[in-house]
C-alpha cells in the first residue's frame, strides 16, 4: 500500500502545485504585505516599513471601507431577500404545472446567469444611461421628465437590479430542482387528509425548501461581499462612488493608488469577515 500512497501523490501533484503557487502563496503574501506601511523617512520617496497591525487599525476606522461594508449590509438585508423571495415564488409557480410555456420560462429565467457579468452589466448600463435609456425615452415621450438611474442616489439600486436579474433564475432553478425531489406521495397523503394546495405549499413545500434556501442565502451573501464587476463596469457611464463596494475600493487602493500593503489588509479583513459570517451557517448545514 505504500506504493499506492506514492501513486496518490503523483495524481495529486498537478493540482497541489497550482493550488499552492497561485492560491495559497498569494494569500500568504497578502497577509505578509498587510503588515507593512508606507512611511517617509527623512528626505526622499516614501518607503515600505514594518507597521505591525497599523493597516488593520486604519482599515476599521476607514470611512470609505466602512461605507462599502454598509452598502453590502444593505444588499444583504434588501436585495438578497427580494431575489430569493422572487426565486421561491417562481419555483413554486413552475412546479405547479407542466407544458411548453413552463419549459420556456425555466430556460429563459436561467439564461441571464450564462451572460458574462461584464457584458450583462454593460448592457444594463446602456439601459440606464441618460442618453440611451429606453425607459427615459418613454418617460420623456409622456412628458414625465427623466430619471438618472446612475445618479449617486439611485446607482446602488441599479446595481441591485443587475444582480437580481443575473441571479434570480439561477436560484430559481436550484429551488425548482429541490421541489422536484420532494416525493409526490407526500402530496397525495396530504390531499387524502383534506389539505388544499395552499396547505401543501405552506406545510410541505416551503419547509422542505428551507435547507436549500439557507444554502442559497449564504452563497448570495458571499457573492454580495465580492461585488465588483457591476460597479466597475458602470463607472464610466455614471456616478459610481469609489467606495460603493469594499471590493471596488480595494481595487482602486491597489491599482490606482498603488498602496498594495493597505489593499492587502483590506482583502484579509474582507475574507475574515466572510468566514465569520458564513462559517457557522455552512457548518450547521454541513452537519445536517
Amino acid at each position, binding site marked *: 500500500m505504500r506504493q499506492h500512497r506514492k501513486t496518490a501523490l503523483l495524481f495529486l501533484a498537478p493540482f497541489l502545485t497550482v493550488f499552492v503557487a497561485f492560491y495559497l502563496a498569494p494569500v500568504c503574501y497578502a497577509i505578509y504585505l498587510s503588515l507593512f506601511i508606507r512611511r517617509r523617512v527623512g528626505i526622499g520617496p516614501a518607503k515600505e516599513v514594518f507597521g505591525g497591525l497599523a493597516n488593520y487599525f486604519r482599515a476599521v476606522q476607514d470611512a470609505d471601507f466602512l461605507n462599502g461594508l454598509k452598502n453590502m449590509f444593505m444588499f444583504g438585508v434588501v436585495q438578497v431577500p427580494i431575489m430569493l423571495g422572487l426565486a421561491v415564488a417562481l419555483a413554486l409557480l413552475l412546479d405547479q404545472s407542466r407544458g411548453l410555456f413552463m419549459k420556456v420560462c425555466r430556460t429563459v429565467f436561467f439564461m441571464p446567469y450564462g451572460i*458574462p457579468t461584464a457584458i450583462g452589466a454593460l448592457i444594463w448600463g446602456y439601459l440606464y444611461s441618460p442618453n440611451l435609456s429606453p425607459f427615459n425615452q418613454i418617460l420623456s415621450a409622456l412628458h414625465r421628465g427623466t430619471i438618472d438611474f446612475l445618479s449617486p442616489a439611485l446607482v446602488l439600486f441599479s446595481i441591485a437590479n443587475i444582480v437580481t436579474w443575473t441571479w434570480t433564475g439561477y436560484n430559481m432553478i436550484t429551488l425548482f430542482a429541490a421541489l422536484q425531489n420532494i416525493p409526490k406521495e407526500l402530496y397525495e397523503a396530504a390531499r387524502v387528509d383534506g389539505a388544499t394546495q395552499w396547505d401543501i405549499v405552506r406545510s410541505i413545500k416551503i419547509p422542505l425548501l428551507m435547507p*436549500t434556501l439557507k444554502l442559497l442565502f449564504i452563497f448570495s451573501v458571499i457573492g454580495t461581499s465580492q461585488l*465588483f464587476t457591476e460597479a466597475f463596469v458602470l463607472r464610466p457611464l455614471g456616478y459610481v462612488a469609489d467606495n460603493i463596494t469594499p471590493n471596488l475600493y480595494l481595487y482602486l487602493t491597489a491599482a490606482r493608488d498603488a498602496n498594495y500593503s493597505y489593499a492587502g489588509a483590506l482583502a484579509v479583513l474582507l475574507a475574515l469577515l466572510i468566514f465569520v459570517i458564513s462559517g457557522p451557517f455552512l457548518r450547521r448545514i454541513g452537519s445536517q
Partner: protein
Amino acid sequence: MALKQPPSQTGPGDATVPAGPPGNVIAPAPPPAPREYAGVSPAPGVLRNIVLTAFLLYCLLPATWIIVAMTKDNGQLFSTFGLWFASPPHFLENLAGLVTYQNGIFVRWFGNSLVYALSISLGSTLICAMGGYAFSKYDFPAKGFLFNFILGTIMVPSTALVLPLFLMLNKIGLVNTMWGVILPSLVNPFGLYLMKVFWDSSFPNDLMEAARLEGAGEGQIFWRIGLPLMQTGLVTVALLCFVGAWNNFFLPLIVLSQDSLYPLTLGLNVWNSVSSAAGGKPVYNFIALGSMVSVLPLLIAFIVLGRYWRGGLTAGATKG
C-alpha cells in the same frame, strides 16, 4: 456531508433535501405521467401566467435592447426609440466595422477568449480529474483535512487573491502575458470537489481491484479504464471551467495591460470607457454587436450541452 452533488446521478440540490420515506421502495408505482394537481390552486392559471410572463419580459429586456441596438448606427442609438428598430438598418455596416475597427482587434479578442477558455477548461479539468481521483480512490495521510481545507478556500474573495497574485506574477515576469491569465485560473477547488464526487459514483472500486488483479498499472487504470467512464463528469467540469474562463473579467483586468492580449469581456469594456470619455470616439454600435457576438458561444454551449450545464451549476452555488 456533501453540500453539493452532481445532479446527473441524483437530482440536483437533493443533497439538501431530506430523502423520501423509507416506504418508497415498496410503495406502489406513482402515476406514470406527471399531472397537474387539481384542487384549490394557490395561484389561478391566469394570475400565474401574468407573473411568469412579466418575469420573462424582464429577463429578455436586455437581449431585446441589444438585438435592436446592433442594427443601428451611433446616431440612431441616441435618436430613435431603444426597443424598436430604426430604418435604414445598419447591421451589415456594424458587422464590417466591428471586425475592422482598430485593425480588427475585436477578432483578436475573440480568439484570445477562445484560447483562454479552451486551455483553462482542458487544463483545469485534467488537473481536477487527477486530483479528484486521488481523493476518491486512494488513502493518504491528512486526506480528510486536506480536502476540507481546499474546499474551504472557495470562500476567499477573489480580490483578496488577485491583487497579491499580481505582485507575485510581476516578480516572475508573467504580468502582461497569456500565462498570467491561464495559470492562476487552473486552480479550481470546486472542480476538484465535483470530480471527486463523480469518481465516487462513476468508477466502482471493485472494477479498479479487478483491473489490478489483471495486472494493469495504476496509470493505465486511470487513463484507460477510469477516464472513459467519466464522460458526464468530465464534460460538466470542462463546461463549467469554459464558462467561468470565458466570463472572467477581474483577473485579466489586473494582469493584462496590452490590449492585444485582452479577452472579449475586457476589450468591450475598454471600448465602453473610451466611448464614454470626453473626446472619445463613440462606438456603442460596435459594443452592442460585440456583446451579442461574445455571448453566442455560450448560447451555443447552452443549447448543445444544456443538460450538463444546468446540472453542474445547480450542483454548486459559488460563482466562478
